[in-house]
């Protein structure tokens, strides 16, 4: 076999491998985003129940409850983009957090079995969402790296692949709860 032919074959193989690895990375991101989405939906499904059980007690936090209902209906709209979903998730987490803190101020509510059950369900879903987000971020990082690193960057720009956004994990989620600080405040 002549040398130019061998070189051509090697180049072809390298190109195919690069192409396949990029496609695999993109699909991995999409695949994991689907799981994130399922978990987020699970959480949205818990919200009407939560709102109806706490609204009787929470007179002062009406606006929070309105916010969360609004966020849920926005998230349930068809055809929203992945970026919008990511942004909604961030808002949702912070509003839910404030509601959960507010619950602590109502002893009746805290002791309510239905609320306790909801709280636990939310905690569990929250943990699963957090895991799914972290998996998604890693997949996106791998994908984005391939988009920028040599030699796959040339191939990626030819394929018109665009960078994707990661979920921002808020700092409070990373830190362990400091019990001492809770008592001091």
């Amino acid at each position, binding site marked *: 076999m002549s040398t130019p032919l061998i070189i051509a074959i090697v180049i072809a193989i390298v190109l195919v491998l690069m192409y396949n690895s990029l496609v695999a990375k993109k699909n991995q991101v999409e695949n994991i985003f689907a799981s994130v989405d399922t978990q987020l939906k699970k959480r949205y499904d818990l919200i009407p129940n939560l709102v109806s059980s706490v609204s009787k007690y929470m007179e002062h936090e009406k606006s929070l409850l309105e916010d969360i209902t609004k966020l849920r209906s926005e998230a349930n709209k068809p055809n929203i983009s992945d970026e919008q979903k990511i942004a909604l998730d961030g808002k949702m987490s912070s509003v839910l957090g404030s509601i959960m803190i507010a619950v602590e101020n109502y002893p009746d509510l805290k002791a309510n079995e239905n609320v306790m059950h909801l709280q*636990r369900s939310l905690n569990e879903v929250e*943990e699963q969402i*957090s*895991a*799914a987000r972290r998996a998604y971020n*890693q*997949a996106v990082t*791998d994908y984005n790296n391939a988009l920028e690193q040599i030699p796959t960057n040339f191939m990626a720009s030819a394929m018109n692949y665009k960078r994707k956004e990661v979920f921002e994990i808020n700092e409070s989620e990373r830190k*362990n709860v400091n019990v001492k600080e809770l008592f001091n405040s």
Partner: protein
Amino acid sequence: MKTISQLTNFYYKSLHPTLTELEADRLALKKRVIIIQAILAIIATAILYFMFKSSVFSIDILAFVGFSYFALAGFTYKLLVKDYAKDFKFRVITPLIKEIDINLRYTPSLHISEMHYTRSGIFTSSPDRVSGNDFVKGKIDGISIEFSDFHAEIEHKDSKGRRSWSTQFQGLFLVSEFPKHFKGKTVILPDTAQSIFGDFIGSFLQSNNFSRNDLIKMDNPVFEKEFVVYGTNQIEARYILSHTLMEKILDFKRRSNHPINLSFNGGKIYMAIEYNKDLFEPSVFHSLLKYKIAMEYVETLHLAIGIVEELKLNEKLWSKL
């Protein structure tokens, strides 16, 4: 759970009368061992001397005599210390374990079942021979835990059909319930590739390891440097390995000071701590009263039994109650 210093106190105070009795036994035994070993050594030298004289000496004979001598010496040593070791386990290790937690059962002659070892998936090939001892089983804070000394070996045959054994794992093997639901398998191993070959080639080798499941990169840089994670499900692995659990595993590793392998499979956590020696065995040549020796028993037990508290395995999620 009792602290290490409380246990050390118990060891030196409550067990003191026992330890002094055992110490007397040990000194007598040590004498016997030295005498018998000396006799064996003299016999071996004498045999070699006469062979050398009678000019039938060859390297094969030297190897044969040497090999037989070491085998015999090892065998007689084990035979001699057997009763002492039994006594030690019954009178020192048993009360020590009871002191840590009354609900734990200790059986010196048994070991953890081979099924647990293979099901853990920490090691990719199943062992050809397993042995072990010092089996502890019980519940701590309602969480079942069992562990033992474990030794797994692989058999090799060379072209001449000669058999030899190599160690796959030797150390402490632990099994406990895990408080979260999961379906797949996640394995955490010490990160050897990345520390030998560096980040780039190391992670390339890891992601192309065909005997393992998918490589899972964790988002804790310290953890990622110390360990490599393989699993069947990217999300589930992160659900199990929360940020807090990763920190706790790192702490545990620092405390144990030995390489640790973990796996999560079928609702259980498996942990293999490599000590590369038989644990909880008394030595004839070291006093049980010595602080360093005592601490080894106390610390190892404390570490193993403390895993439930340390990794917060007792904080069950509501759905698993």
